[in-house]
């Protein structure tokens, strides 16, 4: 009997070790390629092979000396900034209305607003390109902005709605009892309390628009975004500067997403 319990116990321990190993292997598989990218971005050699002979910052310097990289980086920053602000404002009002108004088809409204998140980006890119072509709208960064909004508005809506749903209705009712109008309540109660959700939404939609490739690829012609620039560099042949750009983009997004998730997990 005693033997059987020890057996069962050691089997349990064995399963635990297996599961912990799975976590470690997954982390390893996720992080090793990224680590390689960062390592090679500082490698002196033109080709990405071991052993690494020396370390240098020249790929970073060359990247910033290339006007087309700098230009596309600037384009992407402007695009992502304006997309995130617009999407968050529209998403905030949408989320507040969807939760607090007594509109008839509340649930249908909420779920259909999320539909753009349920189709592949490429479908939206193709559909909008054909649509704009037919309406004779010239392709530019502005059409990319319009395309990104289709995805980021639902994303903002989802993030902010989750936050506002945590705010007890009684807070607002108390403010009304004290004579505040709905607009004042919105500004004094709802806005400050949903602030972490708004920040999370700004950061997530920014990241999305900054990194998004396929919609932008369909919706712009001459003005490049950074992902398109990286893509065309990768497709036309090998260029060690890609390691440097990649490392930079990776670290920027990592920081932003980390901050966003911290805000999203924060409780009221």
């Amino acid at each position, binding site marked *: 009997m005693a033997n059987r319990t020890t057996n069962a116990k050691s089997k349990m321990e064995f399963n635990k070790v297996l599961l*912990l190993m799975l976590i470690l292997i997954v982390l390893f598989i996720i992080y090793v390629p990224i680590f390689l990218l960062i390592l090679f971005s500082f490698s002196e050699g033109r080709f990405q092979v071991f052993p690494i002979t020396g370390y240098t910052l020249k790929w970073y310097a060359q990247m910033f000396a290339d006007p087309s990289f700098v230009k596309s980086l600037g384009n992407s920053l402007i695009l992502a900034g304006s997309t995130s602000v617009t999407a968050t404002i529209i998403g905030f009002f*949408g989320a507040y209305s969807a939760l607090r108004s007594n509109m008839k088809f509340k649930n249908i409204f909420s779920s259909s607003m999320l539909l753009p998140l349920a189709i*592949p980006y*490429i*479908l939206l890119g*193709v559909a909008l390109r054909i649509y704009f072509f037919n309406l004779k709208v010239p392709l530019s960064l502005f059409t990319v902005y319009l395309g990104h*909004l289709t995805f980021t508005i639902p994303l903002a809506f989802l993030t902010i709605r989750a936050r506002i749903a945590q705010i007890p209705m009684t807070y607002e009712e108390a403010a009304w009892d004290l004579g505040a109008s*709905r607009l004042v309540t919105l500004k004094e109660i709802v806005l400050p309390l949903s602030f972490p959700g708004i920040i999370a939404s700004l950061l997530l939609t920014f990241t999305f628009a900054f990194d998004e490739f*396929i919609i932008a690829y369909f919706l712009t012609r001459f003005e490049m975004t950074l992902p398109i620039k990286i893509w065309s560099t990768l497709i036309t042949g090998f260029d060690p500067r890609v390691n440097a750009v990649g490392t930079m983009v990776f670290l920027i997004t990592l920081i932003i*997403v980390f901050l966003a998730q911290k805000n999203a997990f924060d409780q009221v």
Partner: protein
Amino acid sequence: MSQVQKLVRSERRLMIGALPMAIYFLIFFLFPLIYIIINSFWSADSTGMVIDRAFTLKNYQSFFTNQFNIVAYLRTIGVSFSSVLMGIVLAVPLSYAIVFVIPKKWKQLVLLAIVTPFWTSFIIRAFSWQLFLSEGGPLNSFLMKWGLINQPISILYTHKATIIGLGLFSMMIVLVNTYSIMVGIDRSLLEAVSDLGGGKWDQFVEVILPLSVPGIVLGSMLSLIICIGDYIAPTLLGGGVKTVLSQLMIQSLKSGFNIPMASTYSVIMLLTILIFVLPFVKYIKRGRTGE
């Protein structure tokens, strides 16, 4: 009438707040989709510039009679399902391990460590996979050093690499959805299984897995949608020679110029997604209402 009553009555006017969103949805989502559905029944001449607006099934006919297209289509389905399967197989034990095995204070950190990298540019990550999987890359040198293989194995530029890339992405999506359910499972249910003499495995099979089904299904559906539409992994990792549906779509618009045909590919992709996703919606809904 009190102030509160007045405000409650004004709830109807609140709908104005949802208006910009609804209008945007109509103009930049619904209309373009309807427009490409209509376009798929039109036809273009050989230059692609003149479009005949008479109703025709020509594009669908040419899709389904062209063997090259059929192969590409089936390949898309095969690659997508393999990726999602890989995602589920990894994500379910992973989620169990994070929720039930590792110490409480590490849980959120481990989850964030796994999930966060997937938010960054997919192009950059696919490129880092190229570095990792290439013939002279660390994976091959590692395996050869340990005598596991004699010759470098070529994974890169085959769809095995595509499946690895998309499979890990699916893993992340299934993990997030399954984790949120597992973390909320009432521990007294697990104790009940133990009281009846069941072990950890019984707890998993009788309680945890059945309760996690809605999360696994939702995660799998979202992953499947991403895999079917992805263009980056099949091109950068799969090598782009063995064509998939997304590549056909791009070719029909970028190298050739045939709007009705590109629309047809899009509609076929949309229908494929609907066919695979709709039967599962009821499982996801059941999970949401907590039945």
